[in-house]
Structures are given as structure tokens and as C-alpha cells.
């Protein structure tokens, strides 16, 4: 039962990788984006340890130091509990980034599965799955995420699950389209003629060729996922204090404007820069991997 390996015909990946890296370096914006993302990831991992006031990150307050304006000791001032805004913001990076990753990961996995099955199986399976996808898309995504998050209760995992529910349909549609197109390709017919079972055809031959649009979408989605997470925090759904979260910080800051406006600056700027970096990176990746697919 030896199966002639059709992969021998596919172009060597190392060649494409070198070229792709070259083109990536050509685009200054993508490089800037990559650098920003690297910084963000760094803070996501080490933010909590590097924060100047780690005990406050864990929840300690200092009521004598409430609303101190920016200074050397507190570059972005202190909040209503006397906590150093910079420390909270640094520590909050982890929450937003991890949550964003979680959402994109779960959304893409579930969506890819649904889309792949729908596209490959066709028939009523396709119909049912696509109706479900379209329906989920018709419900306003933010409201859907909020409703599920509120219903599930506070907490990091619940929030991620809730947002992922509104995220997967985009991937389902994308992957289904790719699978439908790939299904007609010659190499699929060849593999099946050689006796490959449908599942193997799907996973070993079709899906690997769909990977680049999925990766492009994932990178472009990261920014919006972070925004959604922060949005939920702003409303008050999601993680609870004392876990620092950018959106929640902003919500509190709004109440104390204009007098103590600096409490909004650090989390807001951090949010913006993180999303900006991911979007630049995502744009760059899209130009490399999928130059015709400008959506």
C-alpha cells in the first residue's frame, strides 16, 4: 500500500521563505510593525516582573498617593487608588495580548474546521454549516460577545470564549472558499486517484495550501481582537480587578476627567500602539503572502 508522495512535486519551501523574508525587509512599515509587536510581546511576557511597583499590580493600594500627576517616580501618574499607572499598564499588556491570541487562535481553529468540512463535504452538510455561519455573522458581533461574556460570568477564560464565538465565522467563510477552489485542483484528483482517503486528502494536501490566507487573516485580526477585549473591559465585562486591564483602566479614567486626565493616557496609548503594531505587521504579511488578496 505505498502511496506515491505527491508532495515531492511541490516547490521547496526554503526557496520561498528566503524570498519572502527579502520582500518583508523591503517594506519599512512591516519592519516597524514587527518591531512594535516584538516590544508588545516583550511586555506581555515580562511586564509584570518589570513593573516598577509590582505589589500594586497584584492589588496593593496607596491611598496617600492618589492622583499624583506624572513625575519621575510615576511617569504616568497614579490612579484613584494611588497605584502607579505605568505599572498597571505594563502588567495589563499580558491580559490584552493573551486574550487576543486566545480569541484569534480559537476562532481560527474552529472556523477552519467548520469551513474545511463544509467546503469539502458539500451537499447538505455545507448548507447547514453555512447557514449557521451566516446567522452568527448577522448578529452584531460586539453584542453577541458581550451577551455571552455577561452570561458566562466574569473571568479571563469566559471572556475569550465569548469573543471567539463571534470570531470563527470569518474563518469558516474564508477556509470554505479556499477549500472549494482547491478541491478542483489537479493535485487533489491525482491524490484521490492514488487511493488517498478523503480525510487525508483534506488535511495533508488541501489545507496546507490554504495556510497563507489564514495566517494573513490571523495577523490582521490580532489588532481587532485586542480592541474587542479592551472594549469589553471598558464596559465592565470580562476580567475583574485587581487584574489590570487596559479597557477597565480607561473606564475608570473617564470618571475622573478632566482633572486627572493622565490616568487615561498610558492605557490608551498602549492600546493604540499595540494594535497599530499588529496592523502594520499584518499588512506587511498580507503583501508578502497574498499580494492579490487586498480586502
Amino acid at each position, binding site marked *: 500500500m505505498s502511496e506515491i508522495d505527491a508532495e515531492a512535486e511541490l516547490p521547496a519551501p526554503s526557496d520561498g521563505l528566503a524570498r519572502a523574508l527579502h520582500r518583508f525587509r523591503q517594506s519599512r512599515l512591516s519592519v516597524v510593525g514587527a518591531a512594535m509587536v516584538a516590544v508588545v510581546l516583550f511586555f506581555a511576557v515580562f511586564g509584570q516582573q518589570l513593573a516598577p511597583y509590582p505589589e500594586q499590580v497584584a492589588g496593593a493600594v496607596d491611598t496617600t498617593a492618589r492622583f499624583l500627576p506624572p513625575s519621575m517616580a510615576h511617569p504616568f501618574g497614579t490612579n484613584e487608588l494611588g497605584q502607579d499607572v505605568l505599572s498597571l499598564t505594563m502588567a495589563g499588556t499580558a491580559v490584552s495580548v493573551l486574550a487576543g491570541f486566545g480569541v484569534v487562535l480559537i476562532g481560527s481553529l474552529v472556523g477552519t474546521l467548520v469551513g474545511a468540512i463544509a467546503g469539502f463535504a458539500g451537499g447538505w452538510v455545507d448548507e447547514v454549516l453555512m447557514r449557521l455561519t451566516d446567522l*452568527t455573522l448577522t448578529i452584531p*458581533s460586539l453584542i453577541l460577545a458581550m451577551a455571552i461574556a455577561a452570561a458566562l460570568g466574569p473571568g479571563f477564560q469566559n471572556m475569550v470564549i465569548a469573543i471567539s464565538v463571534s470570531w470563527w465565522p470569518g474563518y469558516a467563510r474564508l477556509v470554505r472558499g479556499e477549500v472549494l477552489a482547491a478541491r478542483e485542483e489537479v493535485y487533489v484528483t491525482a491524490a484521490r486517484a492514488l487511493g488517498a482517503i478523503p480525510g487525508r486528502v483534506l488535511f495533508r494536501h488541501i489545507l496546507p495550501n490554504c495556510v497563507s490566507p489564514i495566517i494573513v487573516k490571523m495577523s490582521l485580526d490580532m489588532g481587532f481582537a485586542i480592541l474587542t477585549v479592551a472594549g469589553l473591559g471598558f464596559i465592565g465585562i470580562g476580567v475583574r480587578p485587581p487584574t489590570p486591564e487596559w479597557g477597565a483602566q480607561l473606564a475608570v479614567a473617564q470618571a475622573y476627567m478632566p482633572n486627572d486626565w493622565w490616568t487615561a493616557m498610558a492605557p*490608551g496609548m498602549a492600546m493604540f500602539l499595540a494594535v497599530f503594531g499588529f496592523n502594520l505587521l499584518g499588512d506587511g504579511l498580507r503583501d508578502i503572502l497574498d499580494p492579490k488578496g487586498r480586502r
Partner: protein
Amino acid sequence: MLKFILRRLLLLIPVIIGLTVIMFAIARLLPGDPVGLAAGPNATPQERAELAHEFGLDQPVWAQYATYVTGLAHGDLGRSLLTRRPVAADIAAYLPATLELVLTAMLIAVLIGVPLGLLTAMWRNRWPDYLSQVLAIGAISMPRFFLGLLMQLVFAMWLAWLPLGGQLPIVAFPPPHVTGFITIDALLAGNLDTFMVALRHLAMPAIALSLSPLATIMRMMRASTIEVMGQDYVMTARALGLPARKIIMKVIGRNAVSATLTVIGLYFGWLLGGTVLVETVFDWPGLGLYATKAIISQDMMPVIGVALVIGLIFVFANLVIDLAYGIINPKVRYG
């Protein structure tokens, strides 16, 4: 054409059913205690039971669903635990404000985004183009609520040019209700002062909401214009002596706009659901604020109602877009 419209309208029925099933599932099958929240911490068990019975929450889920669907046929969307009013009435009260906000934001986005996209396409690869690209990505990345806060800080608190929030000052009398759009109603009533005031209240939230779609429309317009500019028939038009201005307007503009229409349609639906944050920041009395308060109180009827209404508007908007697309691009005409 008529058959096409009819067919799409008929498809609404399964959409409604599907939407309600999903939302009901979320509302009833997930943990939560809406009755407890609505009744308050000091309510007696009897008061809670009364409340539950009054809102039909003591029935099994499928019975609640059946009641809901039959109610739907009469335009009854249930009642809100929080406001104790029929959801349909609440939505009718809050929908116009959201629509006013969203339509204004879309108007700004299109009026600025489309010409900017055209311009950057014609000057592509020179520095204004690069700058606008970076600014566009920045605009998409900016969190709407942070931007709203910043605008409030600068324009309302520091410069005092624009009001802080709300649709109208608390002391103002709203104009007689015709459309529900305060700005239009003020105009219709001939009340220019109220119109100007309402406009100033509308300015910041609409601008905050418009930034992201503006940037995307600009980029899409640029991309499709560049694609059209490279087409053979543009070369033919040039070769046959058509002046540049005419070529651009007739040949490029029309073809590019049709591609952007789809984006507009997509964003319209997305914005409708996404006004939550801006409405919260600016205290704008719209559906987003209504739904948010309901969600936090686990009051699910309004949420289902809002989701249903927005979903339907979204489907309608897509239908209109498809029809518009057919008018602009004759190859896609539906017989």
C-alpha cells in the same frame, strides 16, 4: 428584479427564526440570575417569584420560545426586566438615535474617504500616498472609546468648543418627533437653533465612529482605482484622445465606486452593532447603550430584540447594496 427582491425577503423568515433560536439559547441556557438582579438584593422570595411569573421566566425554555415567536408575529418583542416597558417600545425610542449616529458617521466616511482614495491612487508612491497609508492604518488601530475620551478632553473640557455628551442639553426641548432624528426633526420644524445645537452634540461621536470606516473606504477606493487604472480600456481611452479628467471621472470613478459599495454595506452592519462603545462614552441614548445596560443586568429580552432588529436592518442593507450594485454594474443585473 421583483422576483429577486421577493426571494430575498422570503429568506428573512429562516433568518429570524435562526436568530431568535441562537439568542434564546444564549439567554436561557447560560448561567445567570436575571430575576435576582432585577428584583434587587432586598427582595423577598415571594417578590422574586412574582416577578418571574410576570415575565414568564418560570416557564420551560421551549414554552418561553413559543410565546416569544407568536408575540413576534404581532410585533411584540417581549418586555424588559429593567425598564418594565415593552422592548418594542424601547427599541423604537432608541433606534433613531443610533441610526442618526451611524448614518452621519457613514456619510462622513464616504464623503471624505472616497475622494481621498481617488487622490492617493492618482498620486501613488509619492509621499502624500505613503503618509495617508500610515495614517489610515493608524485610524483603524485607534480604539474608538479612547479617541472619544481624548476628544472629550480636548474639545469639551479644555477648549469648550463642543458639548460633553448626550444628544441635546438637558434643559433643551426636543423638536416635535417626526423621524426621531433630532437634527432632521429640528430642521423640519424650522428650528435652526436646535438644529445647530443638535449638530454640535452629534459632531464628536459621529467623527469618532467614522474614523475606522473612513480609513478602510479610502484604502479600498485606492486599491480598486489602481486596479481600474491599469485596465486596458483606460489605455484605449487615452489612446483615443479622451482628456484625463474625463477618463478619470467616467471610466475610473464609476467602476471603483461599485467595488467600494460592498465595503460600505459591510461596515454599515458592523457599525450598527458597534456603536456600543461610542454611545457609552458620549452618553448617546441609542440602542448600544440600551443593549449594554440590559446585558449587564442579564435582562435578555432587550438583547434579543436589539440583536434581531439590527440583524434585520443588516440584511435589508445588504439587499439594497446588491440592488445598487446591479444598477451600477450592468453585468450583474438580475432578471
